[in-house]
């Protein structure tokens, strides 16, 4: 029973966006991520599944260096975005996060207007030269977030006045407004009701035509519905990584099968 290690020959034909080799993460004395190899492909939804505390969220936060904000967290190993090591000393994490967007578990719109929520990122990164361009960026983002029709008449209303599902779609629109290449989603539907969840999943299906998405979920049914590739984490190890249909009908590793059939948790 070995963990999934990726030999050079097995890399998939689709463009690889993120490639991680030998990633180790320590939280103080705890060894949270142990020697993880994974390839995140472009225009694909990759799901990270696994029981609580297995390290999937930790690994996700390594991809946009959000772990930098935690003092006791140390990241080792090679993580490359389009071939460039993102932990290189010359890389500015702030700029990295404009290219690798993130959506969080609990919808967290800024307590500003809907327009300002979406416009904030483009503003601080100087993506628009004038108000007209900014308006266009905001509208495009809201359309891509599948929420334009619901809010186009009230762009100045506060973002916190929307329902849970709408707020999460607003957060997704906010994340895509900075024209990222990769979208990281940390359990984006866990705070939402089933219909809102289904709408977000449909949105994820549309988004994968333009972006590479990585979604951490504690619901393996969600991973089954929404992803093309699935990575199963267990106790900090990456146990199996493969095509979603295959993982859910005939997984290779016994541990994966135990988790999926509900024998371990």
């Amino acid at each position: 029973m070995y963990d999934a290690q990726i030999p050079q020959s097995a890399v998939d034909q689709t463009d690889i966006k993120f490639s991680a080799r030998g990633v180790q993460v320590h939280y103080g004395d705890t060894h949270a991520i142990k020697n993880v190899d994974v390839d995140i492909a472009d225009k694909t939804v990759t799901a990270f599944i696994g029981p609580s505390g297995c390290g999937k969220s930790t690994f996700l936060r390594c991809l946009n260096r959000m772990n930098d904000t935690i003092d006791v967290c140390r990241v080792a190993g090679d993580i490359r975005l389009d071939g460039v090591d993102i932990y290189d000393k010359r890389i500015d994490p702030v700029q990295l996060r404009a290219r690798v967007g993130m959506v969080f578990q609990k919808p967290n719109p800024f307590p500003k207007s809907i327009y300002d929520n979406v416009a904030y990122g483009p503003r601080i990164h100087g993506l628009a030269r004038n108000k007209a361009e900014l308006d266009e960026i905001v509208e495009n983002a809201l359309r891509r977030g599948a929420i334009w029709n619901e809010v186009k008449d009230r762009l100045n209303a506060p973002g916190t006045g929307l329902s849970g599902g709408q707020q999460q779609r607003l957060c997704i629109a906010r994340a895509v407004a900075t024209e990222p290449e990769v979208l990281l989603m940390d359990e984006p539907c866990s705070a939402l009701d089933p219909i809102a969840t289904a709408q977000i999943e449909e949105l994820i299906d549309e988004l994968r035509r333009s972006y590479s998405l990585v979604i951490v979920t504690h619901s393996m049914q969600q991973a089954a519905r929404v992803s093309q590739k699935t990575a199963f984490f267990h106790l900090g190890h990456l146990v199996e990584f493969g095509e979603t249909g295959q993982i859910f009908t005939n997984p290779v590793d016994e541990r994966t099968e135990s988790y999926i059939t509900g024998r371990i948790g």
Partner: protein
Amino acid sequence: MQETHIASAFDRDLEMIQAQIMKMGGLVEEAIIDAATSLETRDADLAETVRRRDKVIDNLELQINEEAARVIALRAPTARDLRLILSVIKISANLERIGDYAKNMAKRTGVLAGLAPVDESTSALRRMAREVERMLKDALDSYIQHDVDLAAEIILRDRDVDQMYNALFRELLTFMLEDPRSITSCMHLHFIAKNTERMGDHVTSIAEQVIYLVTGEMPDEARPKGDRTSTDAGLIP
């Protein structure tokens, strides 16, 4: 009820499976007609073609099963969606068996081509095969259109097929009693007739699946069993 799921990929998966079932059904219909034609025209080549094409039908059944398993694993369908997938699995099994019977018919045709013809029976067989093929077509239509009434009608039509079989059975017995040299041919023809009658039963099974799919319950009236040959000793003149 809204026809489409919020997740459009689910709809696409279901449509693909439906398309595969229809494709399989078309192939099976074709196989029945060709087998019957080859029997009547004593065309050995056509028979051979039918036997080869059965492989495609078998592969389709494997594919459909795999797809259905995938949909169950990935989508966890419930209610009508679940019955749809379950009926797809059973219908594809029924279709595969019908295809096998058609292949068997073609195989025996090859043998019969070398023996003396037994005229009236082949045309009767052709009529029976025709009726079964029409039933199959209607069954597939009722599946696509979720038409319960049509399905119920098909179940009743099987009675005609059974009666045709009864008539053929008596006829063949008569032939065999009259002319012992025709026993080989008549035995083959009898097997063909039995297989055709079994085809009809499988089509009925498909129609029952359609009723289950739409209403959620298997039809409880006893399937009309018109085949009295196994119970009635008085058929022999």
